[in-house]
């Protein structure tokens, strides 16, 4: 019954590698970008907050499927090229959307550290920057861990949508195999188990990290 995986191993291995690569890149870009935007919106004053809020709100309200298709089919026209690599398009679309959500988590985390903590840092003769790096950010980071973990899990699951722009990731490769082998049950069920395990590993790792530092976020 599981012969199908051996017979089509080339496709599956490529799919697995593409899925892992895609998600690794998206996690790094979306967390870094989200952190930058979130910090800028929290500390940047009213104009920065409003201006950067526009793309964040747009990205949070457009379906990811539409974003991916737009980046793949429409954005090349904007930039005057004829073609964009599907993998690159998927990285851009997923990172933008994930980054938008993560920027909101970062902003909320920073805002959740009460202002009297900033006062306490300033009263100790710290500069504003020192207060942010030594007092506010560490506490915010602890509180952000669980929601960022959830968002990364959503991103991993949503990466399957990249199949619609022909990124050879695991779901897309599985569909090809199913079309050829007529074995949807075993392939799709295995695929579900795979995503379950991958997401659980990521979520549990972040949970474990959080449990270790949670006491330090208490106030």
């Amino acid at each position, binding site marked *: 019954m599981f012969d199908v995986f051996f017979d089509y191993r080339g496709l599956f291995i490529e799919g697995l590698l593409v899925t892992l690569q895609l998600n690794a890149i998206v996690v790094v870009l979306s967390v870094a970008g989200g952190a930058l935007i979130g910090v800028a919106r929290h500390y940047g004053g009213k104009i920065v907050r409003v201006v950067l809020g526009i793309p964040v709100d747009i990205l949070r309200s457009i379906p990811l499927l539409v974003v991916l298709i737009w980046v793949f089919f429409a954005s090349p026209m904007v930039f005057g090229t004829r073609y964009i690599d599907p993998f690159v398009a998927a990285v851009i679309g997923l990172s933008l959307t994930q980054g938008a959500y993560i920027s909101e988590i970062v902003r909320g985390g920073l805002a959740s550290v009460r202002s009297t903590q900033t006062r*306490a840092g300033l009263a100790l003769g710290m500069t504003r920057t*020192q207060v942010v790096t030594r007092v506010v950010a560490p*506490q915010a980071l602890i509180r952000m861990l669980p929601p960022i973990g959830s968002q990364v899990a959503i991103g991993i699951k949503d990466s399957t949508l990249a199949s619609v722009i022909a990124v050879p990731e695991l779901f897309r490769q599985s569909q090809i195999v199913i079309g050829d082998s007529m074995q949807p049950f075993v392939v799709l069920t295995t695929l579900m188990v795979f995503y379950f395990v991958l997401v659980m590993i990521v979520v549990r790792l972040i949970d474990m990290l959080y449990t270790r*530092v949670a006491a*330090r976020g*208490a106030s």
Partner: protein
Amino acid sequence: MTDSLDTRKMAMSGAEPLVLLDGISHAYPNGKVSLTELSFAVHPGEVVCLLGPSGSGKSTAIRCVNMLEPVTAGRLVFEGIDVTAKDVNQVEVRKRVGMVFQNFELFPHMSVLKNVAIGPIVSLKRPKAEAYDLARELLAKVGLSDKGDVLPSQLSGGQQQRVAIARALAMQPDVMLFDEPTSALDPEMVGEVLAVMRKLAEEGMTMVVVTHEMRFARNVADWVVVMEDGRLVEEGTPERIFEQPRMERTRAFFGKLEEQDGVLPTG
């Protein structure tokens, strides 16, 4: 004023005030006026208690002293320098002023020892070993030498507030500000914090204390300032203020306190 009750020892010695609020006014960004032409002086070695009903501007006044709130008018003179001048580095002033908050405001992500050492390490760029040695010394002073390794959340309120006092002392400030340091504490823990403050006062620390602990004000303060509605109502020695309040509003304030918990100290 020839009243013998009204002599201010430190002022009499001719010393310059360490802190002078000279007609300062303050308003919050929402337009709420919180201080109107408030003036009082704090001399070196003095304990000045700020009393007054809720909302009278005591916290705002104390925050103005270490420039956590910007004054809109008047002068704030610190160690002879007008620090309301534009070119004054607020951070440098705050390094000389310790502050203790009503809700402790310890840093929850740091051990107790690190909480005490962090000011010298970050603000004064002291070597870590030196800062930790001082922190251990100060924890011993507030009676918590065995608690250095725990997180603040594992301490009682009274213990947290004593750590907060040690944290402020670690900067070796010239003056310590206390904003209702015992108001968030269970009654049985008030004593341990007041005892530490009393010890500091005896050692000659200059202190400005906002408090509702009338017994502390009566026994420890050298000077009492009564505020209401952002203004100074009257000021004087605790003996004079408690025994012969001149202003009706002071009497009304004391009367309310007495009604609440019957703790107006006499004699």
